[in-house]
């Protein structure tokens, strides 16, 4: 596990303010502590795609995709990878602890963990990409419930199909909050054609109040 300090600062809303050495040390300390606490695990499965009645079926599973943005993502794909990754609940309880007794540290730890789960997903994505290349398949970008119009209601079904609770201890509440908190689910298409460079800005995202957008940035790397 690696945590990029620049990313952590970005999540914390850092914009080149003057920071003293003490604050920098604190960020370093939090990175190390999160790395120690992480029990990163992941699971993914690959399904063939079938298109019928303007829907995408993942063959052999109960997953049916109907939202426009996810159908757009998979437009050229013949297979779809369904993935889930988590840092485990140790991270959550430590963040909860600090957010009660040392809020500065709690906030920074939270940002470190967010950076860490993104890193883990990148690693998983790389593995998927390398495997796909062996079969001459290219991957699309990684797309998660809640992005664009891909409804967050898909969360429960994705976890169900992957049996994440049993395999990696990942659950989802009725409000679609994943627990442990620092977890991600995503779909990645596998296509014979290399995907065009995806637009990584916020044009298609519905989260119009996002702080990154307000600042003209974006949430993904």
């Amino acid at each position: 596990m690696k945590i990029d300090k620049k990313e952590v600062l970005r999540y914390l809303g850092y914009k080149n303010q003057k920071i003293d050495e003490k604050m920098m040390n604190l960020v370093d300390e939090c990175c190390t502590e999160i790395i120690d606490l992480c029990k990163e695990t992941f699971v993914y499965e690959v399904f063939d795609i079938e298109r019928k009645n303007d829907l995408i079926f993942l063959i052999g599973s109960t997953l049916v995709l109907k939202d426009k943005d996810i159908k757009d993502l998979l437009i050229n794909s013949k297979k779809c990878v369904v993935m889930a990754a988590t840092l485990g609940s140790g991270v959550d309880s430590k963040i909860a602890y600090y957010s009660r007794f040392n809020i500065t540290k709690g906030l920074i730890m939270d940002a470190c963990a967010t950076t860490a789960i993104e890193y883990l997903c990148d690693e998983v994505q790389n593995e998927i990409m390398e495997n796909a290349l062996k079969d001459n398949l290219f991957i699309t970008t990684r797309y998660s419930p809640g992005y664009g119009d891909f409804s967050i209601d898909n969360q429960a079904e994705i976890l169900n199909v992957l049996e994440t609770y049993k395999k990696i201890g990942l659950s989802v509440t009725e409000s679609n909050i994943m627990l442990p908190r620092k977890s991600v689910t995503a779909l990645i298409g596998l296509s014979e054609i290399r995907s065009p460079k995806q637009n990584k800005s916020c044009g298609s995202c519905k989260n119009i109040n996002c702080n990154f957008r307000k600042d003209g940035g974006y949430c993904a790397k």
Partner: protein
Amino acid sequence: MGDIVRNKIDFKNFLLFDGAMGTMLQKYGIQRGELPESYNIKHPEIIEKIHSEYLNAGSDVITTNTFGANRYKLKNTEYTVEQIVSNAVSIARGVAGDKLVALDIGPIGQLMEPLGILSFENAYETFAEQIKIGTREGADIILIETMSDIYEAKAAILAAKENSSLPVICTMSYQGDGRTLTGTDPITMVNVLQGLGVDAIGVNCSLGPNEMLPIITEILKYSSIPVIVQPNAGLPRLCGYDAVYDVHAHEFAEYAKIMAEMGVTILGGCCGTTNEHIKAIKNVLNELEPVIRDVKRMTAVSSPSFTVVLGGEIKIIGERINPTGKKKLKEALKNNNMDYILYEAINQRDAGADILDVNVGLPEIDELEVMKKTIKELQSVVNLPLQIDSVRCDVIDAATRIYNGKPLINSVNGKDETMDSIFPIVKKYGACVIGLTIDEDGIPQTAEGRLKVAKKIVDRAAKYGIDKSDIIIDCLVLTASAQQSEVMETIKAVELVKTTLGVKTTLGVSNVSFGLPQRELLNRTFLAAALTVGLDAPILNPLSEAMMSTVNAFNVLWNKDISSKKYIKTYSSFVGIEKPITIDSAETKDLNRIIIDGMKEEAAKVTVELLKTKTEMEVVNTYLIPSLDIVGQKYESGEIFLPQLLQSAETVKKSFQVIKEKMMASTEKKISKGTIVLATVRGDIHDIGKNIVKILLENYGFDVIDLGKDVHEDVVVNAVRNGNIKLVGLSALMTTTVRSMGETIKALRDNNLDCTVVVGGAVLNEEYAKMIGADFYAKDATQTVKIARKLFDCE
């Protein structure tokens, strides 16, 4: 029906379970994501076939297809728990013949509090529903399996014990690091679950047989009940695009043989195993005899992931969470100030306590509710076993029930009435208990007299089925000032009780010095004397350096701290006296600068200095508030970022603590600018944002009632009504939970409560806030402060 069949279960012999249900269902075409339990209704013939295949392979027990048949998982399906469970049991019963049917109970699939939002009580009810139906329909055994969270396992076991008379088996799933996902290790699992009275315990799923061997070794070392193992057919390996389990039947059975020879008597398979695996194990078991194990019971208490075993190094029971003679703790309990209590716990842990005593007995509070809340909060913060301390039996009962782990109860004594009310609790929940050597005739004067009472306690416990290893005798310390001649009797009694009864001992050491000067000197001398005769776990103040150093030294001299490791670690850099405070930082830096720079370590002492010449209000109004305003402006203008704002906020908090303490000590002057209720709404668990708002509001002198996360609207309504609250702050981070934010506001309005509501959270905006009926939207914490100051007219 259950009763008749149950007589046949012979835990002395091998018992062979079946293999995986899911793997077989996949063979018969189930889709990923399809509800396996639905096959009990849609395709009973397939389930029947799978059971038959296992029975033909030689299974003594088949497991019903009910792993996920709970009300949470079935919620959005067309099936009820009643339908699924009753069908499943009757299918199994129909083919089992004279073989046994195990009612399968898997985890609910939701994380429990405090990490999740599933409460212990809801988990219990969920399991009880399944168990009642399964028992009624004729299951022979209840198999609680694949548990990661020992708290969930406890809820399931209690539900089984209280709603059925069937034998109960419980297995947990371990990761490669030797712990379950929520951190439980084998010794803790055995200590807690065996205490709860299950008939067999063990391990299943997640790992293959080879990876399980070290875990099984540990379990066998501590478990005096039969041990069950149901491994996966290896670790899943990616083969093309499919995950495969590749430990085949023959190899699997080889491992089964090793396990049986180690002492495992109940075997079966989990993910990836089929009837072939079971058949192979059957053949192996036919050639073997069960190993008879003789396991010595240990005296140990546990948190969910940490077990303290008495008998080796001296263990410290921290005594500070007890309001007797502690004014600040009393205040904290009366004002529901949980943070103060939690700090007491953290400080004792950091000072080296192994177990924490928890006593919240005050006549003016609802002791039962406060005890339950305190136990839950402490367990979410400190990973040490707790000692539940109350004179009220109902409080001990309720706290022991919801405790996560194996607690120590303080206490029972030699009085018949006390023993007959406390021992049933100790037995039912599998706790350890402290037995005081006092009975109807008072404290015996002689050591022999105290031994007699101790023996009476141990004997009576045995009648309740409680092993003496779960009893820790306290021979009671008398004060040297009043009963000098009897102080030595206690020391003698400890030795006598230990050698005669073979039980572990504890003493509340500091009683000895009551009423005399230089108490620590007497305390530590007495402690040393008691340790030499075999005191195992003194109850003392871990913040007392004199006491802790005595224990540390003793552990070296009595060869308990092996290679003096802990001693060297503690004292190699010990400098004797605390370094003098560097004067320049304390006096030259002014509080404004300290706050703006966020130097929180320095805030307290500078505040103390300032209060020598200024009043409390002067410090607040000329230092704290103006500095906070400056920091707030810097944050808004982007000159500093959020962590820097928070450093300053925490600095003010430290300063405020000093001011509040001074005010509490002097007059009843009020500093509060108003009281505000904060909550993260029902269904939402993101509370960092809310905590940030809280600290800033407190900085500005507001009292905050923090209702926490996942707060039901009724709780908000009650808090507002009872406290006559004028401002409520609600937080939600998800589009899904903004709905319950709206419902909370509606509940406040419907109850005609005249309060202003301010809302915040990532998905909200001005317009959205208006739509759900809020009075204000705050884009960040500083905005909330502005709204509050305006409302309470502080500007």
